[in-house]
């Protein structure tokens, strides 16, 4: 008896638009017509499959980003960025919200791990020489993504509004003071005053939940698009005799 397949039905065909995957050509066509798969190249070099090639640090960073977005949205439901309520909201999240403490832990640990994996990804790409032509621009976008990751982590650090958050951000932002001429004003714009206060909390919150994530996801889209475009370029062959 023939198995009933979703893509053989009228509805399935209209959504998936992919042929039955009998040949490699069909599978490539199915890949092209899949929205989620379009960020991937249809084919990759076999060597890219090995753990030692990338240590899967790029995909690990992307997974952590997804984990941060999911847990962050949950936390947003229970948090108001105001000095009078922020700390109380944190206590409520930890004691009364369903899975609140766990989701907060997930957000915190994912954030720390993402800083590590993004930095390690950069180091791995360096040692593999994968920043060389034609991939120079993508390395530069990657460095921007690293800076955005650090800024996201730093702006999020203030939100619990406890002693740890307050003084870590006070120390971190005081470094801006040493920048000649513009340092003082940069710091004032960032903090919304001459010290960390209610304006700072609101500004860091807006940066943390809207501005920086949107910029990061946009830059990440370009990063992955460039990766796909350059994926067919064979550095080892181009160099003739060089080893990856």
């Amino acid at each position, binding site marked *: 008896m023939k198995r009933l397949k979703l893509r053989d039905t009228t509805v399935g065909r209209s959504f998936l638009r992919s042929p039955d995957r009998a040949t490699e050509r069909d599978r490539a066509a199915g890949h092209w017509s899949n929205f989620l798969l379009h960020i991937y190249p249809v084919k990759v070099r076999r060597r890219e499959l090995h753990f030692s090639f990338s240590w899967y640090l790029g995909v690990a960073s992307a997974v952590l980003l997804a984990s941060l977005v999911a847990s962050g949205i949950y936390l947003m439901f229970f948090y108001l960025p105001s000095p009078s309520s922020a700390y109380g909201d944190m206590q409520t999240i930890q004691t009364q919200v369903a899975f609140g403490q766990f989701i907060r832990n997930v957000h915190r640990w994912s954030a720390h791990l993402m800083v590590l994996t993004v930095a390690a990804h950069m180091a791995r790409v360096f040692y*593999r020489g994968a920043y060389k032509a034609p991939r120079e621009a993508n390395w530069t976008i990657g460095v921007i993504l690293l800076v955005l990751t650090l800024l996201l982590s730093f702006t999020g650090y203030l939100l619990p509004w406890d002693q740890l958050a307050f003084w870590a951000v006070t120390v*971190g932002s005081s470094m801006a003071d040493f920048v000649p001429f513009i340092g003082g004003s940069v710091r004032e714009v960032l903090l919304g005053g001459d010290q960390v206060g209610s304006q700072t909390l609101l500004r860091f919150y807006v940066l943390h939940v809207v501005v920086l994530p949107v910029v990061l996801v946009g830059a990440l889209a370009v990063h992955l698009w460039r990766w796909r475009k350059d994926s067919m370029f064979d550095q080892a062959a181009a160099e003739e005799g060089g080893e990856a």
Partner: protein
Amino acid sequence: MSDQDPRIADGKRVLGVVPGIPATGAQKDPSDQDLVMTSPHLLVRHAVAALAVLLVVLVLSILFDAPLREVANPFETPNPEKAPWYFAALQELLALFHPVVAGVLVPTAIIGGLLALPYIDRNPAIATKARKVAVAAFTIFMVTWIVLTLIGFAFRGPNWSWVWPWEEWHGEL
């Protein structure tokens, strides 16, 4: 069916069996440069990597609670006053050098240097042997940065004095 008539395989008639090995060789030897389909070969690996990462997050989140100290108090400065761990190297530099050097020149040089790296290093070689200067420079930078981060994170106590982390713990995550 095929088990009744050996000349019919998979519903099709076998016209002949040719002796010998194919002109292209008996077996294909897969090379690392060969192309393979992303789906499923790369996708299953990415799925496993994703599950492994989520497992690490899950275990850490179950074992260790995120810290929450007393409510922020602008009039009570903790000692030591520590930046987040990823800025610990900068904070350590700040204790060692003039603020303009540690707080402005070094971070600007690092970010600028990293951004411009592919345009500075125009050597097309990717084998480590053929790019000793670049690899050595990057490794020295990485090791220095990791050591400074560890010192700032775990080896500094009240008034930024030296402490042994197994005697006094002042690291904050």
